């Protein structure tokens, strides 16, 4: 057992309001630079939709991730022979139009234009060429189902849905969508790391953050092809590739990453999980149906004395083990079994988990006779004598999981490699908790219904309250349990701190690089 620690994330999609605050926080900190304008290390997509870059989930186009090769796996679009033969032209890379051409507006024209017959306008300017341009697309062009025929209808996750099911999803009365915020998954079996011909990408030993060494990167861009989530980006100005660094400078200082810190819906959770690195290859090579469960199984119980002992021999700090025991992600993923990884079939073993969105059918429309209501109402009252009843009773809510607004096949295509049972389990838990809280706070649900729902999902009222707490009431320190970085130990590996002992204090003024002499 090779126990290692991994900082993992849980995004609670039931809470995401799609405000893009996370994206903006990230952009302002990390990618507001020349060559990085088009990058959104954090982006929020509307589902159904084609996302950013367009159709990134379709690996027939982009050839990302791993594919089964006999008993093992191999990279779909990269790897030694493929990288060598395609080293001067990587044939499956996204082009800038797959992302979007970044633009700004010439705002100064609004106030500096000379007087004329027409209102001055701020023309759009390309942030790549600096020339006026026609805006063709943006990073969230299909937000809230806009342009559905072009975007939502081409969602690669529809491949397991029948035409009738797809049509039903786009009926005006039944149309539904949810938001999918995405950052780098900091995978356990990262395809980007495996594909890099320069060896510039690495997974940090202490917390599993995947980073690109900018000094080593030679800009071959194999990682751009290899990452099935398209979360490495090529900076055309520096000639190097970049990706989400999980705000490691903030994490090392005990702060949550900017996207998580700024999250309006408080959907994001971050914490340590311990896992068995010996199993990575076997789990990544497992049958597609087993990948999710086996990934869950390789995450270890941080309370198990055996695991703790193995972690300690591996140099995992006590503070990290402590963090793992308090980790909100461990609760969501392992204890409560409510979260699933995004597209596990890519076999990169992503360590960002999603609580799927419930999207319940909260009302039904049925035929009813309204004609006699006309007599009850005043003459000037508007009433509809048609025979439809819009019924919002919650009695039947729990039973509608299998019949929810999003077909389970769609959710399963996103989160469980097609396993609808795994998705239904999570959704039922969400619904059970919701019903339980409805009973507690409103009381208009039958107790039998709630009990049945809790029993069906192996929850107790106490457990449901715990889930409710972490879902709805959790404070900052509940949502982000960040292990100490132990920089003091890290620095001792590099230099002897005794050298500077006694060099500071009263009466001394020693220069430093930042302060000067």
């Amino acid at each position: 057992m090779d126990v290692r620690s991994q900082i993992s994330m849980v995004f609670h999609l039931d809470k995401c309001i799609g405000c893009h605050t996370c994206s903006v926080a990230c952009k302002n900190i990390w990618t507001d630079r020349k060559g990085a304008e088009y990058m959104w290390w954090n982006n929020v997509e509307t589902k159904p939709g084609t996302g950013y870059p367009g159709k990134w989930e379709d690996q027939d186009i982009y050839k990302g991730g791993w594919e089964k090769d006999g008993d093992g796996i191999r990279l779909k679009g990269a790897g030694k022979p493929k990288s060598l033969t395609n080293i001067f032209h990587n044939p499956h890379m996204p082009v800038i139009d797959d992302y979007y051409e970044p633009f700004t507006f010439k705002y100064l024209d609004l106030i500096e234009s000379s007087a004329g017959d027409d209102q001055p306008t701020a023309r759009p300017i390309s942030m790549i060429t600096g020339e006026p341009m026609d805006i063709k697309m943006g990073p969230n062009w299909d937000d809230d189902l806009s342009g559905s025929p072009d975007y939502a209808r081409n969602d690669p996750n529809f491949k397991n849905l029948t035409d009738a099911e797809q049509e039903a999803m786009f009926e005006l009365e039944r149309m539904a969508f949810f938001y999918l915020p995405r950052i780098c998954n900091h995978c356990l079996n990262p395809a980007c790391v495996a594909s890099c011909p320069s060896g510039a990408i690495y997974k940090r030993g202490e917390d599993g953050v995947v980073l690109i060494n900018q000094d080593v990167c030679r800009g071959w861009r194999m990682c751009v092809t290899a990452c099935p989530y398209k979360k490495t980006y090529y900076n055309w100005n520096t000639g190097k590739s970049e990706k989400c660094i999980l705000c490691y400078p903030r994490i090392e200082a005990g702060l949550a990453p900017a996207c998580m810190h700024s999250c309006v819906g408080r959907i994001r959770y971050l914490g340590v999980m311990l896992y068995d690195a010996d199993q990575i290859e076997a789990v990544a090579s497992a049958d597609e149906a087993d990948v999710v469960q086996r990934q869950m199984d390789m995450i270890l119980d941080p309370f198990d004395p055996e695991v703790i002992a193995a972690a300690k021999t591996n140099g995992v700090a006590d503070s990290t083990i402590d963090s793992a025991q308090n980790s909100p992600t461990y609760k969501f993923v392992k204890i409560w079994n409510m979260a699933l990884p995004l597209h596990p079939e890519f076999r990169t073993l992503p360590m960002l988990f999603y609580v799927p969105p419930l999207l319940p059918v909260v009302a039904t429309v049925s035929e009813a006779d309204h004609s006699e209501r006309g007599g009850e109402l005043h003459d000037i009252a508007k009433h509809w004598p048609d025979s439809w009843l819009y019924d919002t009773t919650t009695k039947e809510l729990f039973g509608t999981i299998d019949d929810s607004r999003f077909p389970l096949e769609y959710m399963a295509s996103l989160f469980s490699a097609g396993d609808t049972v795994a998705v239904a389990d999570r959704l039922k838990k969400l619904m059970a908790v919701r019903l339980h809280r409805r009973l507690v706070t409103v009381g208009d649900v039958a107790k039998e219904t709630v009990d049945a729902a809790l029993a069906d999902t192996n929850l107790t009222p106490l457990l449901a309250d715990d889930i409710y707490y972490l879902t709805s009431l959790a404070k900052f320190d509940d949502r982000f349990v960040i292990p100490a970085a132990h920089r003091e130990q890290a620095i001792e590996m590099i230099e002897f701190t005794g050298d500077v002992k006694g060099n500071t204090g009263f009466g001394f003024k020693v220069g430093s690089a930042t302060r000067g002499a």
Partner: protein
Amino acid sequence: MGRPRAPKPSSLGRPFALAVLLASIPSQAQAQSAGEDVFRTTCAACHTTGADRLVGPGLEGINDRRDREWLIAFITTPDQVIAGGDSIATRLLAEYIVPMPNLGTTRAQAEAVLDYIRGAASDAPSPAQEEAPPATEEQILLGQALFQGHTRLTNGGPTCNSCHDVINDAVIGGGILATELTTVFTRLGGAGVRAIIGSPPFPVMQKAYEDRPLTEDEVAGLVAFLERADAEHALHQPRDYGIKLFGFGVVGAALLLGLYSLAWSGRKRGSVNQEIFDRQIRST
């Protein structure tokens, strides 16, 4: 015809030229000998003292045909006389094609040589040329090797193809500093070629082979090779493909590109959103 001639002690000594040529009072024999030396080293490559034409005209009776001052001027500075548009010089050039090079002959040497020609004229060999035996294959191969520098010249002289080129399948890439020699045999004849190689009249060549003369065998070999090259030159023209060469290039490029597009036929082409962009209205 570059073979040295025996001096004629009895005839036509002209002491006046020798006063200029030599500081001391010369004897007739000395004068003869000085003129002969000059003729042998400088003139004999292209001229005979008889009536036979080599590269240039035979010089028998030249003293009677031309004005002496004109002769001396032409011998010492032929380039200037020709460039000056002299009518005789122009006519001669038209007849003999190869212009006489300026060999840096002094006036005294010119006079000595003219005197020597006057004396030697009566004694010129019969016009009948000695038939050189046909060159052997070994000689031709030796000449070929020498021309290209595969075999070094015995006395260390520079290889022919450092300056000269011959269009022949045996030679790859000769020099372009000096005349191209493919048809030199036709132009100058065997005797002229042999004479030029044996005792080069051209200043640069003279300087180059001054202390490193070619041996008889080498001269024979080179002459044989040049004769062969001349004879075969019609067969050894590099093939000119003309427009077809361009055609081959185009076809080759098309084949390569076709191969590439076959090998990378599964590549991603353009943007996945191209269809959408194509429908969008542009402002320009």
